[in-house]
């Protein structure tokens, strides 16, 4: 049973299409990466899991999160899902915690909303802060967000997400706004907590290396579509989509070999401005006329599922 099951998700606002036929699955205790450049639709996809869509969005497809049919759910059912079964950690902890309220209020708010008595919620808040490694939780709950460093604050956000004891954890670029050393600590914390509790995690990032290190499986998104899905190890060894390979070649490697860094020509496209057929073809070195005819179907190649007509030319 998957904790997140997104199938054939299409989303548009007015005449502007943003997501086309997105399929993402996360199993219990599994960590799944969602990788892409800005505008690829990865944040939209992760927010869809909680039924959070832009104003005026038209949505079709299927989204099931922690057993709740999100697109069919009413307000009450969605609120219940967000309170007790699925939680999100946002990119910038300074922006995602109300700056004028105390850290203790932040942690107890969700608990109180799901009916936990005030005293019990306060005790849980202390316990949660302790679990995420914040010293002197008793003092911390009385402080305001601006009195914490970014890394410490992200721990508070993670503590808040854990308060719900969720089956599904959505991490939307949880380390992008942090220092590199803090990044490692936060990732380690997320992994540890997820392992202890058997939570399924959707890890959204633009950093392919980070995704490969953290995740069991990775989805690569481009212009509102999933273009490749593969186990992390396979994705690195043998990328099947030209875009995935280009992403790998565009990021410096810390593994010692001094491969040349190659930038991807052109700029990222959104779904609305993508060319006909394969969205990546105007930036792809392998593209020819056949790529313009229709959007390539997803099919297996090696360990990957890939939306490309000639994956054998990417990695033989």
């Amino acid at each position, binding site marked *: 049973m998957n904790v997140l099951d997104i199938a054939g998700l299409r989303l548009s606002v007015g005449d502007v299409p943003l997501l086309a036929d997105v399929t993402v699955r996360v199993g219990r205790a599994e960590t799944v990466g969602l990788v892409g450049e800005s505008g690829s639709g990865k944040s939209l996809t992760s*927010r869809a899991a*909680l039924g*959070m869509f832009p*104003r005026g969005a038209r949505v079709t497809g299927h989204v099931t999160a922690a057993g709740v049919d999100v697109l069919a759910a009413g307000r009450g059912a*969605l*609120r*219940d*899902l*967000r*309170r*007790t079964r699925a*939680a*999100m950690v*946002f990119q*910038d902890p300074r*922006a*995602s*915690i*109300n*700056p*004028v*309220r105390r850290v203790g209020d932040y942690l107890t*708010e*969700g608990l109180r*909303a*799901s009916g936990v008595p005030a005293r019990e919620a306060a005790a849980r808040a202390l316990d949660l802060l302790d679990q995420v490694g914040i010293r002197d939780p008793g003092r911390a709950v009385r402080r*305001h967000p*601006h009195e914490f460093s970014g890394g410490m604050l992200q721990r508070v956000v993670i503590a*808040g997400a854990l308060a*719900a004891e969720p089956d599904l954890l959505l991490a939307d670029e949880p380390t992008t706004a942090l220092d590199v050393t803090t990044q490692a600590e936060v990732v380690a914390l997320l992994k540890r907590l997820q392992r202890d509790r058997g939570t399924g995690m959707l890890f959204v990032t633009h950093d392919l290396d980070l995704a490969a290190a953290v995740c069991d499986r990775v989805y690569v998104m481009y212009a509102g579509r999933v273009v490749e899905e593969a186990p992390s190890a396979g994705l690195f060894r043998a990328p099947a989509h030209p875009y995935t390979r280009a992403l790998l070649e565009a990021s410096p490697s810390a593994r010692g070999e001094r491969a040349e860094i190659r930038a991807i020509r052109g700029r990222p496209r959104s779904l609305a401005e993508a060319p006909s057929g394969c969205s990546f073809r105007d930036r792809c070195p392998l593209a020819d006329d056949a790529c313009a005819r229709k959007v390539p179907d997803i099919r297996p190649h090696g360990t990957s599922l890939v939306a490309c007509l000639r994956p054998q030319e990417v990695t033989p």
Partner: protein
Amino acid sequence: MKARTLSVWAARRALGAALTVLVATVVVYGALRLVPGDPVVALSAGRRLTPEQIEALRHRHGLDRGFLQGYLSWIGGVLRLDLGTSLNYQTSVMSLITGRLGVSGLLILYSATLAAALGTAVALVSAVRGGVADRIASVLAAAATATPTFVASIALLALFSIGLGWFPATGAGTGPADRLWHLTLPAVAMAIAAFGVLARVGNAAFAEQLGREHVVAARSRGVGTAAVIRRHVVRNALAPLLTVVGVLVASLFVGTAVVETAFGLDGVGSLLVTSVSRRDFPVVQGIALIGIALFVVVNTLVDLVLPLIDPRVTAGGPRR
């Protein structure tokens, strides 16, 4: 540690306020000296005065001494709550003003309450609902802001007093209920422009908070809509709103001049108008001082309350 930062910060604010008042008194006093010709002519305003009276005026306003000495003697009187004697009424300026502060104070309070309550309500509804409600509110607010108080006064008088006969046209009434009834139209007249400003500023403040990520994050945690609006939108917009309310309250004091004259109310505002037209300089000086004091006190109070609303206010100040 934190309490000390806060008290140091509060002391600085209070000192700043005192300095502002000090500078303002110099300007108020100096205005008399800037009058072309002999200031005594301005002070006597064409009345026939005996040489003794002229000498007394000169002495009272320090015109027989240099600027600094004159100012010091005048400010010394002010500090003893002696604002001099009205040339028009021949009584103490202080008693003239304090006798009328009740009406004007109630009028300002009534008007500020109306403007704050309605302005914030319209701002919140328009920001949350958006769409047509937002557009209607923005037109309403712009129209209200652009309506001069004297036009509003005349329109309200014509409609509700002369036309419908619901409210009295003049007088401040006797007894609490009667007084409120009498002050309703003038309070509404003054509140209209303030309402417009608050509806606009409030709408912007609420809309900004609604778009903030911490509001999205609160929703993502399953916090109900009403609680999100109360704890994360209204709570966070309070600081800018309170600042605007502070300025508006002080500007309402100025507005009493128009409204009290239009509605025949015997308050500080109408006293100011009469005194200006009769060139009763000591009274004008006294009212100017009270207006400045009100402005500074209200804004200092707002500044002192702000750190309680937004703890980051003091954080930018001296480091711990």
